[in-house]
């Protein structure tokens, strides 16, 4: 992918071996960036990560495959999904992991195993292919995971916010923002929007908050 050079916030990711975490690090957090194929998930992870994005995979074994008939893999003994991730050290004790998760149907059977306890999600959308995002939004709602929607700017026709909200059947409270996933500043702003959204939800549901107290 080409990177514009006029924006000082654009960085291709740190080179060289990755720095270890602080010795006092003791709390890992997760945010998931999901959306359709080629929508810029890995690009966004790379833009804000302090390490070059890494890739790993998880295997859905037979028990999981049995319920995956819709995807036509019911007869397979296992299916593998790969995902990218990066990290941001929040402070000496807290480290935030960003996962670029594919939006395909079969991926969602692994959601609970991989992403339970996720703070929230960013649904990255390409307005030229809104249909690709609908399923991710439906699944996040199903799992009760708070999310924001970020329109990655691919230079396509400009739709109004209302048009996009309508097309995605977005609930009123769900933030919708524009972004350029190649830009560190822009991607950072998306994550800040998500965390502020979580704060709003948290303030609106004090009882849920009490339940999380140790």
């Amino acid at each position: 992918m080409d990177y514009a050079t006029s924006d000082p916030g654009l960085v291709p990711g740190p080179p060289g071996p990755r720095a270890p975490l602080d010795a006092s690090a003791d709390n890992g957090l997760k945010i998931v960036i999901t959306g359709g194929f080629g929508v810029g998930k890995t690009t966004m992870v790379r833009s804000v990560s302090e390490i070059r994005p890494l890739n790993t995979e998880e295997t859905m074994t037979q028990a999981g495959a049995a319920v995956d008939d819709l995807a036509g893999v019911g007869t397979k003994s296992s299916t593998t999904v790969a995902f990218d991730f990066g990290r941001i050290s929040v402070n000496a004790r807290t480290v935030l992991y960003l996962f670029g998760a594919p939006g395909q149907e079969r991926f969602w059977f692994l959601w609970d195993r991989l992403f339970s306890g996720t703070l929230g999600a960013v649904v990255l959308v390409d307005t030229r292919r809104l249909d690709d995002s609908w399923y991710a939004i439906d699944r996040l709602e199903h799992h009760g995971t708070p999310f924001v929607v970020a329109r990655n700017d691919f230079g396509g026709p400009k739709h109004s916010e209302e048009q996009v909200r309508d097309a995605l059947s977005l609930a009123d409270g769900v933030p919708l923002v524009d972004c350029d996933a190649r830009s560190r500043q822009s991607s950072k702003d998306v994550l800040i929007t998500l965390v502020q959204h979580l704060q709003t939800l948290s303030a609106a549901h004090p009882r849920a908050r009490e339940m999380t107290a140790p």
Partner: protein
Amino acid sequence: MTPRPGREEDPDRLYTLTSGRSRPVSDAFDLVTLVVAECDPVPGMQSEHAAILRICRRPTAVVELAADLGLPVGITQVLLCDLLDTGRISARHPRTVRTAAQLPDPEILEQVLVGLRNL
């Protein structure tokens, strides 16, 4: 997704690594549980166990270990259970709730916000 070339050979090797176990016996390890070695590798130790102990001289998330070892997350978790059971590693678990209906601790959210703004 079509399997990558060579994928067909993988299960045998993976089963050998874990003595046939494909899933950890417990959910002791989240993707972002930070693992810390409590000892150095010793001669004769399974090479994956030794590699984990080397990598985890500093806290390392399970998912980073899986990427470094080139192993699926589930297999990495099985290997970690072995090391935890024998006291060779300790695990620092995420202090977030694991159920969907509960929202994160406001204090943690504030820390994340500050951390993001300082990026």
